[in-house]
C-alpha cells in the first residue's frame, strides 16, 4: 500500500541522526514563528485581513492585473504575458538574446523552478548563476530545492564544505558555516560584477504603483539588479495585490510566519530600471492559474504567499523531508499545488498528511490546506490513482459494516487470527503490519461482553 511519498520517505529515514535534526530544526523555526505571532495582539486579525484581501484580489485579478500592467508600462517597464512555462522560457530567452546576454545572476524564484527555466536557458548557451546562498549550493550540487525558503536544508555543513572544496576551492577540512558563507560571498561577488543581466522573482506586485516587491535576507536581489545593465522580474499572476495598505499586512506576516523574524533584511521596491540600465522587463506568468481559479474546492490555494510555514509545522514534512514529495514544492501547499498541476502524477503525495490541520491553523493567508488535501483524497478514484488494495478493502469494509449478521460473524471469528503464526502475520504479506506489530484480537467481543452485563 506504499505511496510514492512513503517509499521516498523510507530513504530519508535511513539516516536517523539527520532525520531527527531535520525534525527538530523545523520545530525550532515553528517555535520562532509562534514567538512572533504571540508578540502581536493583532496577529489573528491580520490573518483574517490577509485572507480577505487575497480572496478579494484573486477573484478580481483581471482588473488588478490590468491596473498593474498599465502602471508598470507608465513607469517605463516592458510587460510580457506568458500563458505557460514554455512561453515564459521563450520570452525570457528572447529578451536575453536581444541584449546579447551570456550570463545572468538571479535571486530565488520558485516560479523559475516551476517553469524549469534554468535548464532551458542553459540549453541555449546562457550561464545562469543562482545568488541566494541555499540556491547556489544546490545548483553547484546539481540538486533541486527541498524547501521553498530554506532550499539546501537537506545538506549539513560537511556536505557544503566538501562541495565548496571541489567547486569553489575552499580550504580543505574547513567546514565552518561562517567561513563557507564568506567563500560563497567572494565567489558570488565576482558573478554580480560580471553578469550581463539580473533576474528576480517577486513576492508581491502592487497594482496601484506598478512596483515589484522582493523580500530577501541576503540582499542578493538588490545585488543582482545593482550592477548588470538589465533586470527581468518574473512573477506569477496571483502575486498581484491592490496597494500599499494591503502590502503592509503581508509584509508584516511573510517573514514572521516563515522564518520567525520580524522582517526580512531587505524589502525592495522595483519600479523601473536604474538610470544607467536598459528598461526593466516584467513577465507575468499564468501557467495554470487562470484555470485553478475556477476549481470550486481548490481555488483558495491561490491565496498562498509562499512563506513556508505550512511545511515547517507539518509533522509529515518534518519527518520525511522535501525530496519525499513528487512535486517541486513540498509540504501541505505543495501537495495541493501538485494536484492542481497534474493529479495523475502527484497523487502519491496526498497520503503525506495526518489531517492534523496544523498547517491551516498557522497559514497567514488562511489557506484551508488540510481540508483541501482531504478533498483531493476523495477524488483519487476519478483520477484513476486510487490504490487498488485500499479500494478493495474499502469495499469489503462497507459490506462488513453494512450488515450486522456478517459483522457479528466476523468479530466472533476474529480471534482466530491470533493463531496465525506471528512471522506470517507480521510479514510483508500483510501491509497493515508495516511499521508496527499486528494487534491481538480479544477472545470476547464487545457485544458479547455487553450482553453478559460485563461492561456498563
Amino acid at each position: 500500500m506504499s505511496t510514492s511519498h512513503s517509499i521516498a520517505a523510507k530513504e530519508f529515514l535511513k539516516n536517523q541522526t539527520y532525520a531527527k535534526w531535520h525534525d527538530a530544526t523545523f520545530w525550532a523555526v515553528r517555535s520562532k514563528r509562534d514567538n512572533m505571532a504571540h508578540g502581536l495582539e493583532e496577529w489573528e486579525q491580520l490573518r483574517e485581513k490577509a485572507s480577505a484581501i487575497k480572496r478579494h484580489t484573486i477573484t478580481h485579478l483581471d482588473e488588478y492585473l490590468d491596473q498593474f500592467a498599465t502602471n508598470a508600462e507608465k513607469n517605463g517597464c516592458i510587460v510580457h504575458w506568458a500563458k505557460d512555462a514554455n512561453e515564459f522560457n521563450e520570452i525570457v530567452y528572447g529578451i536575453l538574446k536581444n541584449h546579447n546576454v551570456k550570463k545572468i545572476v538571479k535571486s530565488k524564484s520558485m516560479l523559475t523552478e516551476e517553469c524549469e527555466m534554468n535548464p532551458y536557458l542553459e540549453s541555449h548557451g546562457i550561464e545562469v548563476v543562482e545568488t541566494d546562498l541555499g540556491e547556489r549550493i544546490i545548483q553547484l550540487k546539481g540538486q533541486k530545492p527541498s524547501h521553498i525558503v530554506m532550499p539546501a536544508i537537506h545538506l549539513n555543513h560537511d556536505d557544503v564544505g566538501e562541495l565548496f572544496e571541489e567547486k569553489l576551492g575552499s580550504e580543505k577540512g574547513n567546514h565552518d558555516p561562517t567561513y563557507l558563507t564568506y567563500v560563497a560571498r567572494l565567489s558570488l561577488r565576482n558573478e554580480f560584477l560580471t553578469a550581463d543581466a539580473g533576474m528576480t522573482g517577486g513576492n508581491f506586485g502592487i497594482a496601484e504603483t506598478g512596483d515589484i516587491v522582493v523580500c530577501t535576507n541576503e540582499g542578493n536581489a538588490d545585488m543582482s539588479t545593482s550592477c548588470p545593465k538589465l533586470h527581468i522580474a518574473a512573477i506569477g499572476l496571483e502575486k498581484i495585490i491592490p496597494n500599499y495598505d494591503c502590502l503592509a499586512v503581508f509584509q508584516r506576516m511573510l517573514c514572521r510566519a516563515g522564518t520567525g523574524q520580524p522582517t526580512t533584511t531587505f524589502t525592495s521596491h522595483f519600479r523601473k530600471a536604474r538610470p544607467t540600465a536598459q528598461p526593466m522587463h516584467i513577465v507575468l506568468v499564468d501557467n495554470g492559474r487562470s484555470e485553478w481559479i475556477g476549481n470550486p474546492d481548490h481555488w483558495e490555494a491561490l491565496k498562498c504567499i509562499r512563506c513556508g510555514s505550512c511545511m515547517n509545522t507539518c509533522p509529515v514534512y518534518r519527518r520525511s523531508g522535501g525530496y519525499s514529495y513528487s512535486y517541486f514544492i513540498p509540504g501541505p501547499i505543495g501537495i495541493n499545488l501538485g494536484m492542481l498541476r497534474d493529479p495523475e502524477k502527484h497523487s502519491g503525495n496526498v497520503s503525506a498528511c495526518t489531517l492534523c490541520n496544523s498547517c491551516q491553523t498557522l497559514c497567514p493567508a488562511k489557506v484551508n490546506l488540510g481540508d483541501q488535501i482531504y478533498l483531493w483524497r476523495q477524488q483519487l478514484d476519478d483520477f484513476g490513482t486510487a490504490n487498488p488494495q485500499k479500494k478493495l478493502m474499502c469495499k469489503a469494509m462497507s459490506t462488513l459494516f453494512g450488515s450486522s449478521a456478517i459483522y457479528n460473524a466476523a468479530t466472533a471469528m476474529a480471534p482466530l487470527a491470533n493463531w496465525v503464526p506471528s512471522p506470517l502475520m507480521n510479514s510483508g504479506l500483510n501491509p497493515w503490519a508495516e511499521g508496527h506489530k499486528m494487534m491481538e484480537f480479544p477472545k470476547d467481543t464487545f457485544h458479547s461482553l455487553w450482553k453478559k452485563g460485563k461492561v456498563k
Partner: protein
Amino acid sequence: MSNKDDILKRYRANVREKYDMPDLSDIRAITYPDPLVQFIKMTESVGGHVIEVKEGQDLNQLIRELYPEAKEIASNLPEVTIATRNPDTVGRARDLNGTDVGIIRGQFGVAENACIWIPQTMKEKAVCFISENLIILLPKSQIVNNMHEAYKRIEFDKTYDGYGTFISGPSKTADIAQVLVMGAQAARSATVLLLPE
C-alpha cells in the same frame, strides 16, 4: 488576440464567486510608548548597531573613529567630506566594489522591525549593498510604530524615482545548516547613526 487579453479573458470566465475588499482601517496595529526605544532594541536584535549622534558632534570624525582602517568610503552626501568615492559620479556601478564603508541617508525608521526606508537618492544604488559596512543616517524624530504607518508615508525620490527599499540590519543568511551568519551578499555590518535633527 494578444496573450494578455487571452489570459485575462480566461481568468474572468473561470472566476466563480466574487469577494469584497475588507476594511483595513480597523486593524489594531501595535504601537509603542516610545517608538525610538523600540526601534533601537529591534535594530540590535536584527544584528545592527545604533549610535546616537550628539548635537554639534563631528560626523566625519565619528565615522573615522568607527572605521579607522577604512580606505574606500563611498557617499554622495554633502556632509560626508571624507568620502573617496561618489555613487553619482562613478563610471560604472561595479566601480563601487571594494568600498569599505558606504554612507547613505534613511527617511524614517519602523519601531516594530527596525526597517529603515531608503529611497534611491544616488545614481548607482549599488552603494547600499556592495559596501562591506553600511552606515545609515537617520533623524531620530522620524520613527513610526509599524508597517501600516510606514506604507502610508513612503515616497520615492523625484530624480531617482525607480527604486526604494526597507533595510533592517545587515545582510544575513542561515542557509548552511541553519547557522546564522551576518554578511551574505550585501553589507556585513549595518550601523544606524541617529541624528539629533
